[in-house]
């Protein structure tokens, strides 16, 4: 086996080990599970009551918000904590690449967000009495959105601090505007032209577009473009993450 393949397998193994460790420590906690599962329902109450929207519009929007928030809820917190307890040094001194660390740190958030997304969908389908038309687009939408945004969270945690608050406030500076420019609250069709130009730069726009397509075939960019943009974003985030973590070593 050539050396580089061996290294990739090695890194994947390590990333998986890191993901399992994070799941055990951070995600499989009753309080985290309960609050994350309640999140989409709270959002539903906040946005659906009194508004005049159809379930086909409502559910993809709720899912996009849920995925964004659950994928970025733990990663940006856990890494500064592990820097403080110096357990992060274990990863830095292990014979693995920085890519493996970034992937591992993002993987657990992605798995968690996907699981929350699927549960929320299942409840939504029953309550709202709608169906999924394109199951493949749905799965791609959930999976890619989750891993993209959990990588974004990891990216933010590369900012070298042991202070959780710093990372969270930086993250919110990006997370909240994303919601408003990505067609989740305000349909892109009803935005002025400049709105659409900004929306094009938000990965959440494509995530939302893809998930919406899975439910009622409404789409702005087409599922192929959506998937392509999300994959590209993922690659950019992962590579940027590796570079930032490499640089953040003092």
């Amino acid at each position, binding site marked *: 086996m050539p050396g580089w393949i061996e*290294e990739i397998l*090695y890194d994947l*193994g*390590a990333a998986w*080990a890191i993901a399992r*460790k994070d799941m*055990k*420590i951070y995600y499989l906690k009753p309080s985290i599970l309960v609050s994350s599962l309640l999140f989409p329902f709270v959002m539903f109450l906040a946005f659906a009551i009194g508004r005049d929207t159809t379930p086909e519009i409502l559910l993809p929007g709720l899912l996009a918000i849920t995925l964004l928030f659950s994928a970025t809820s733990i990663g940006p917190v856990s890494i500064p904590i592990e820097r403080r*307890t*110096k*357990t992060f*040094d*274990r*990863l*830095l*001194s*292990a*014979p*693995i690449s920085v890519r493996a660390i970034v992937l591992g740190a993002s993987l657990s958030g992605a798995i968690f967000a996907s699981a929350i997304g699927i549960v929320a969908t299942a409840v939504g389908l029953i309550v709202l009495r709608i169906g999924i038309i394109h199951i493949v687009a749905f799965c791609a939408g959930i999976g890619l959105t989750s891993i993209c945004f959990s990588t974004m969270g990891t990216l933010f945690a590369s900012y070298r601090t042991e202070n959780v608050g710093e990372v969270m406030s930086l993250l919110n500076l990006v997370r909240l505007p994303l919601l408003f420019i990505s067609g989740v609250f305000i349909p892109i069709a009803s935005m002025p032209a400049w709105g659409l130009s900004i929306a094009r730069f938000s990965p959440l726009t494509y995530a939302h577009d893809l998930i919406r397509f899975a439910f009622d075939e409404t789409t702005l960019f087409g599922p192929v473009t959506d998937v392509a943009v999300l994959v590209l974003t993922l690659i950019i985030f992962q590579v940027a993450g590796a570079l930032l973590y490499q640089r953040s*070593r*003092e």
Partner: protein
Amino acid sequence: MDAIEVIGLTKRFGDTVAVNGINFSVKEGETFGFLGPNGAGKTTTIRMLTGMTRITSGRALIHGHDIVSDTRAAKQLMGIVAEISNVYDELSAWDNVVFAGRLYHLKRVDIQRNARDLLETFELYERRHDLAGSFSKGMKRRLTLAMGLVNRPKVLFLDEPTSGLDVQSRRIIRDVIQDLARKNVTVFLTTHDIEEANVTCDRVAIINRGVIAGIDAPEKLKQTIESLQSVEVSFDAVRPGVVEVLRALPQASGITKEGDKFRIYTADPPEILASLCALAQEQNLRPISITTRGPSLEEVFVRLTGLSIDTAKEEGETDAGLD
């Protein structure tokens, strides 16, 4: 080939030079001590040797593998026990060791076997299902060592392995280090405890303010240490001329006065004690306290480098002398 070879290793943090162009090499199977006061650059050196922090300049080779250009091969050979017991509090002892093993791409069966052996060695096997967060300081330390050994390293880095631990934990850790030496594992350990360096190391480097003052066998170090032992005595009343009388003691190699205490340097504390008692009787002095003391690290450092204590103190305000 040397197990560790360090050439002109330097680390700067902004304007601070934490490690300043140090050179040394450690042979395979050797237990090498890095002895120095707080802030000397011990941890920084280990962090560079293990690839945790970037090297400003210089090189470090682990069994011939450059830590910068051949990182994986170098890291694969080593085990690391950090200064702070960095265990995952929310994982059980068992899960901690298993996770450490997974980062080294070991086979499942090997991880399980090593985890069991190591937890037994460090007397934690009975508590393996308990969360590490519920462990005492000494238990966490032992768990950190178990994690550092899970990949059966050829070179083990230990950053102050026993500092602040009780006798039982110290004993277990020392036994393990001796056992590793028998298995030809190279051990690099830092400490500010002269006794520990003496007991465990084949060779010791003394580092202060980022510079190595000397590398020697502990025997040589011991001679320096012995000549720097001292007896501290204070009397019920201060009388003029006492200093002269004390200085006249045949075994005294030097004397200083600190407050109401006299410190008499000697290579032979028991003899001095005997003479002191006789002297006190003769001069009608009543000693109210007598203590024998080993030298502080600073004193040993000063003796080895030939700097005077005053200049060393002025320069190194962070270097707390440790007894």
